[in-house]
């Protein structure tokens, strides 16, 4: 019966299509589409591809760290003379892999999937809107992102290879004319920044202008709030990096010295540059973006997790209002903490004191949000579906990531921990078992909306538990290594330093856990593609959820809703006393 209605509504929505729009050809419908759902899926696919690609780079690096100097199995022979002669990785190539892993994961993987993918697909639906406010700009923003991705990828094949100075691209190193890779990196970044700017203008306008009747700001699902604040961060924090990118590009191609000090000696020879530049200026401009950027990485994840927790606990979110105020406050504060990445630059105690204080303050809203989500679990009869497993795992993982950040935010502790594996452990706990798990949760949760099919629970269960165990084995030992003094970005895994001797064994553990993590993504990939075809067909609201996206048909047709949605209540009215069922959707009077 349910199935019948679904099919009818799909037919309906298509009939509606014919009435209002000319039939679009293949290119306009699937490639250069202006429909937010198609664009969202394009972003999501591309983002997932880059996540896999960036992860592969890391698996190759992990071989070199586990077995320094041994030929890389399987693919070593294919890498070529200037990357890995006889399969043995060159230091330059190791640096390329490291720099590009970070860049790809952050700018081409997580953000496009979290904002471009989930934001584009889900947010307009949750607003009850027919599309984004500016559909054509939306399309342009995807294709500019795509160009940025292509630019980054081609840089691997140029003479001298890809960028080698880390995802942070600190000058003077990044400005030295050793490889074209850095120039390509900068051009790629300018594409990616342009794409984000277009996207964020679109997101904010859509949220402010296209909310359905009755959908006031305090009735917005938390996911929408998270995207709203994220968009402001992208809008206002990225332009300074764009400025910095232009300046570094000028340094590289027009011979300026914005970031190049006078009297630099490289490999025993004085460098002939105009000089008088300021390398620390880059760090300020970079971190002015890159600290807000870490919240760009995590806020959408918090949004996804909130939706899934409310849905699977069958309870309203505990402290919704406090969460909203926290996320807005967090957005403001994230603009004034950036120099906690620079305690080692000798910026003086007054500056350090200021940024330590702001850093401690900004952890308060994160803790409030996390606490609210934890308390939401209290007394619930939880449905342990695959999306819920991933969402639940997010909480302790993000907790570990956040807590380990506190010592980093205090200069006396950070002086010891800076540039060690402890920092790598810290931010990966937030971004990998934190954000990426939340993104998986989102894929499992909204897959039925995008395809009309449910993903397989058994495969999902294997994917979850395998990934959960492996990913902790990858990142937990990094805290041990970092506290022991092992530096990050070491080609030989730190073997050259005597004090690392007892820590090297962990490189083997991490290596095997990382490859295991790779293996456990196979069930996900199989599940993803096979469910599109053979998954269990579902109605428009398979999770019995309350927000507006579950009113539209699965998958929604062009224009999204069959009739204009009207909102009558708060977003998470589950188990309302006296109601006939345990969920009272926003769209039901």
């Amino acid at each position, binding site marked *: 019966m349910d199935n019948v209605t679904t099919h009818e509504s799909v037919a309906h929505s298509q009939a509606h299509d014919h009435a209002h729009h000319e039939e679009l050809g293949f290119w306009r419908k699937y490639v250069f589409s202006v429909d937010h759902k198609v664009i969202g899926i394009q972003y999501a696919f591309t983002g997932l591809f880059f996540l896999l690609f960036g992860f592969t780079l890391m698996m190759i690096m992990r071989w070199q760290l586990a077995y320094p100097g041994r030929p890389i199995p399987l693919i070593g022979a294919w890498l070529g003379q200037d990357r890995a002669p006889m399969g043995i990785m060159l230091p330059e190539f190791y640096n390329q892999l490291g720099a590009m892993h970070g860049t790809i994961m952050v700018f081409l993987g997580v953000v496009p999937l979290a904002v471009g993918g989930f934001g584009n697909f889900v947010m307009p639906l949750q607003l009850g809107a027919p599309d984004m406010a500016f559909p054509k700009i939306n399309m342009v923003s995807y294709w500019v992102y795509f160009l940025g991705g292509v630019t980054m990828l081609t840089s691997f094949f140029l003479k001298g290879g890809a960028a080698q100075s880390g995802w942070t691209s600190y000058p003077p190193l990044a400005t030295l004319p050793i490889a074209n890779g850095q120039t390509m990196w900068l051009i790629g970044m300018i594409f990616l920044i342009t794409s984000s700017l277009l996207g964020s203008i679109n997101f904010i306008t859509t949220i402010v202008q*296209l909310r359905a009747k009755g959908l006031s700001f305090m009735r917005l699902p938390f996911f929408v709030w998270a995207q709203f604040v994220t968009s402001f961060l992208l809008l*206002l924090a990225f332009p300074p990096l764009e400025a910095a990118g232009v300046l570094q590009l000028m340094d590289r191609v027009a011979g*300026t010295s*914005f970031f190049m000090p006078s009297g630099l000696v490289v490999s025993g020879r004085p460098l002939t540059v*105009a000089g008088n530049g300021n390398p620390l200026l880059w760090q300020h*401009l970079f971190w002015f973006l890159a600290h807000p950027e870490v919240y760009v990485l995590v806020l959408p994840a918090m949004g996804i997790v909130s939706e899934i927790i409310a849905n699977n606990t069958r309870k309203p979110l505990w402290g919704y209002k406090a969460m909203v105020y926290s996320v807005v406050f967090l957005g403001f504060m994230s603009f004034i903490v950036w120099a906690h990445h620079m305690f080692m630059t000798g910026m003086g105690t007054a500056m350090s004191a200021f940024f330590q204080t702001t850093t401690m303050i900004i952890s308060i809203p994160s803790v409030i949000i996390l606490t609210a989500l934890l308390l939401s679990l209290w007394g619930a009869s939880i449905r342990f579906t695959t999306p819920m497993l991933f969402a639940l795992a997010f909480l302790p993982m993000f907790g570990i990531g956040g807590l380990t950040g506190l010592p980093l935010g205090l200069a006396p502790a950070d002086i010891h921990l800076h540039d060690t594996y402890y920092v790598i452990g810290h931010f990966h706990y937030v971004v990998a078992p934190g954000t990426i798990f939340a993104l998986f949760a989102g894929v499992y949760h909204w897959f039925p909306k995008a395809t009309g099919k449910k993903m397989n629970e058994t495969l999902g269960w294997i994917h979850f538990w395998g990934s959960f165990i492996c990913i902790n084995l990858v990142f937990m030992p990094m805290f041990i290594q970092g506290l022991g003094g092992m530096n990050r970005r070491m080609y030989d895994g730190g073997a050259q330093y005597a004090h690392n001797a007892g820590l090297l064994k962990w490189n083997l553990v991490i290596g095997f856990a990382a490859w295991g993590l790779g293996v456990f993504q196979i069930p996900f990939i199989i599940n993803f593609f096979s469910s599109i075809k053979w998954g269990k067909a579902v109605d428009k609201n398979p999770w019995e959820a309350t927000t507006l996206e579950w009113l539209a048909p699965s998958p929604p047709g062009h224009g999204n809703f069959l009739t204009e949605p009207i909102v009558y209540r708060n977003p998470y009215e589950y188990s309302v006393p006296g109601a006939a069922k345990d969920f009272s959707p926003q769209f039901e009077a």
Partner: protein
Amino acid sequence: MEIPYIVETRPDTGLHNGKLGIWLFLASEVMLFGALFSTYIILRVGAPEWPHGELSVLLGAINTVILISSSVTMVMAWASLKMNDWGTHRLYLVATFALAALFLVNKYFEYSEHLGKGEGPWHSTFFAIYFTLTGLHGLHIVGGMVVMAYLLGPGAKMWKKNPDQFANRIEATGLYWHFVDLVWIFLFPVLYLL
């Protein structure tokens, strides 16, 4: 369903989509030029000495006058549209476009004079900043000219079908144009006078 508030304003926010969009875009532009001006301040404060009188104040002043006039003609282009005077609107928009072009011609003479003397961006921190800031500003001028050309050419058809939306577009272009003008009003004293 169709996308609402493309032309009419949303009652509770008092905005139409395009207006909010252009203001957000300008906010990001403020951050872009803000970062560049900060760079200028930091490099200048840290410099052992700073050159004076390198640039022709006369050319700079002429360009300032040109851009301010173009802002005025831009406002007139919008106002005459609001009064339904299509012919005058076209005249003012063409004038704005021409003034923008004049600005660039002027800039071209300035650039080629310095480059001819070997004073390119590689010459010193001052010229590095001069070329980067005015270059980016010049790109913004070109961007504005492209939009104006579109609104004078193929984009003008919209006036017949949807005059309100067309007026909105002119208004948004105007807001952008005033911003570009404003940036120059900062650039001129900072680079030519101080």
